[in-house]
């Protein structure tokens, strides 16, 4: 069945606008394609959609994920060992995206994009209905050509800012970011932490002083308490990565993984305004 350009789902920025009107916060879970396998990924995407996710982030496995901690490293290694490749992921998405109501954003390191060619990459992902893109190893200075192509193909390119980003630079990032601004909660790689640093509150305020764009917080968030804390500080959305990836990838069976993931996401949804 040919996939059509999804006109039924709205983009990232629009999603935040709608949620804001309803006084709600965005729940953005993240899973890694191909861990434990692509068919489970397909089921997980539908599951996440049905239990209240507002945006879903889908990670493309890379052999040298230098911004990721042990959980996502292990998930990437497992996925690649199974033979997951980009074409297989695209195939799966072509099938699944039309069945999903919330927008999907891809998370990938830069080399796979560079290898395909920026223009080709953007067209390809647009063709399967992807709305957003996050690339953790490309700083603001290097994003010019990517952002140009992304805008042409109506892909929202989300940029990162964090605790070590000076204010001037943070403003420039916020200005250039599409979809929303990704605030990295702590200095480090991905992975659950016991608590969310209260520096995040200051950072959220600073970003909001310079932009009306939505701010979502990620890295380290794994519990309902974290979600509530971040909500209390005025974040517009929360991103759950390693915690979700771990539940799905390290379960005894794909079925159990999906069950646990559902429970987990629902508990977070419950904690969110």
């Amino acid at each position, binding site marked *: 069945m040919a996939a059509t350009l999804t006109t039924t789902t709205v983009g990232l920025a629009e999603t935040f606008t709608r949620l804001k009107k309803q006084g709600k916060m965005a729940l953005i879970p993240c899973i890694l394609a191909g861990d434990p396998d692509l068919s489970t990924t397909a089921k997980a995407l539908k599951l996440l959609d049905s239990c209240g996710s507002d945006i879903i982030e889908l990670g493309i496995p890379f052999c*040298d994920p230098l911004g990721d901690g042990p959980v996502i490293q292990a998930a990437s*290694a497992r996925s690649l060992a199974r033979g997951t490749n980009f074409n297989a992921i695209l195939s799966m998405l072509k099938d699944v995206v039309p069945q999903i109501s919330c927008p999907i954003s891809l998370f990938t390191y*830069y080399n796979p994009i560079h290898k395909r060619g920026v223009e080709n990459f953007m067209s390809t992902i647009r063709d399967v209905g992807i709305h957003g893109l996050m690339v953790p190893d490309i700083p603001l*200075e290097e994003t010019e050509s990517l952002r140009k192509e992304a805008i042409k193909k109506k892909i929202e390119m989300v940029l990162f800012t964090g605790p070590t980003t000076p204010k001037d630079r943070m403003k420039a990032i916020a200005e250039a970011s599409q979809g929303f601004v990704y605030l990295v909660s702590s200095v480090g790689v991905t992975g659950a932490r016991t608590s969310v640093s209260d520096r995040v509150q200051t950072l959220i305020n600073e970003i909001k002083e310079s932009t009306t764009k939505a701010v979502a917080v990620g890295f380290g968030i794994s519990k309902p308490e974290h979600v509530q804390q971040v909500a209390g500080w005025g974040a517009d959305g929360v991103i759950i990565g390693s915690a979700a990836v771990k539940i799905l990838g390290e379960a005894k069976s794909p079925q159990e993984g999906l069950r646990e993931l559902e429970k987990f996401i629902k508990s977070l949804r419950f904690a969110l305004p």
Partner: protein
Amino acid sequence: MAVATGSSSCCKLAKPCAFTTSNSSQSPFKLKKFTASPAKSTSIRCTIARDPVVPMEAKKESDPAPWQRPDVFGRFGRFGGKFVPETLMYALSELESALHKLADDRDFQEELSGILRDYVGRETPLYFAERLTEHYRRPNGGGPHIYLKREDLNHTGAHKINNAVGQALLAKRLGKTRIIAETGAGQHGVATATVCARFGLQCIVYMGAQDMERQALNVFRMRLLGAEVRAVHSGTATLKDATSEAIRDWVTNVETTHYILGSVAGPHPYPMMVRDFHAVIGKETRRQALEKWGGKPDVLIACVGGGSNAMGLFHEFVNDKDVRLIGVEAAGFGLDSGKHAATLSKGEVGVLHGALSYLLQDEDGQIIEPHSISAGLDYPGVGPEHSFLKDEGRAEYYNVTDDEALEAFKRSSRLEGIIPALETAHALAYLEKLCPTLADGTKVVVNFSGRGDKDVQTAIKYLQV
């Protein structure tokens, strides 16, 4: 710029071209249209002739003098840059600022020169290899003259310490007390552990589990020197994975930690900084060549893994168009075997560990596991400046197999009584193909990047002695 002290070794840190500090009142983060470095707008493809005896095609006459190596964005032509997570960007710009200041800091330059002289043992000799020269002498009595730049005689046995010392001093200036490093063969790890012991800094070295096995002597040395050696089991468990893990540690501990990267790879300013700390090799060579034969070297040869010893020798001479620059990579089991590390011959341009450069990758952009008998050359990437020099046709890059390197390992030991590191043996091996093509009296300088004591356990498995 450096002040020449009484010592003949001197280290100069170049000011990055047209550098603007991050303290300027103008925001440095104005969104600029990215354009390639103004000096070059076309990418010149360099083809390596099948028959390595034939020198590479001469490119159109391009004058290296105006090249920005690197430009303000850390680019060498289109190569280089800073492809790292946002968390590291501030640390990188802090490093750039510090380097900029140090170029004019007389105290720093003198302190560095003093350590290179009294602790590292510089300057290293430029040694006329009489019996190797004889080996390449033709029946009519003519042939090239082979000189060896003895970086193996440095403290710790390789060139790596030049950079480790410079960066350790820099780290102290930055107030960082925790040092991390990656290592392949272990020489950079040992050099880093050494300088950390010398300066009282905490030292953590990441090393691939596979490399730890084949270079066990170096692992022991690092631990004896007080460093913590952490095994990296992910990916191929070799240098590339150790580098990724070191970068992760840096992302996490950036506020307290300086990352002493061991080669001219990685994000800007590393390729420039590491090259500049090794540039003393080339500077000494120029002076020594003048003293010994009243001229310049005609050909410079060095092995290339990440490319640090090669850039250290080449940098001084890039603008001397009459000096040929030759880099030798590892062909492992042969270029067609799929088991090699000949990045500049078989790689494609991509992004690895923070820089845009040639790398060995598959059709999905995943990095291909390289192979070389020598751990230090077993890296699927290469420093961006080498990629630039290759594309410009300024430097030529060839490769030799494990077997050819082992032969050279033995030859150097037998003919000169100097056991080379297996990495260095690759440069020596290329002499077999090169020398027959050289005019009589051609002055060839081989960068003897390290000694081979660390490799005897590996060599024992392959060589009959």
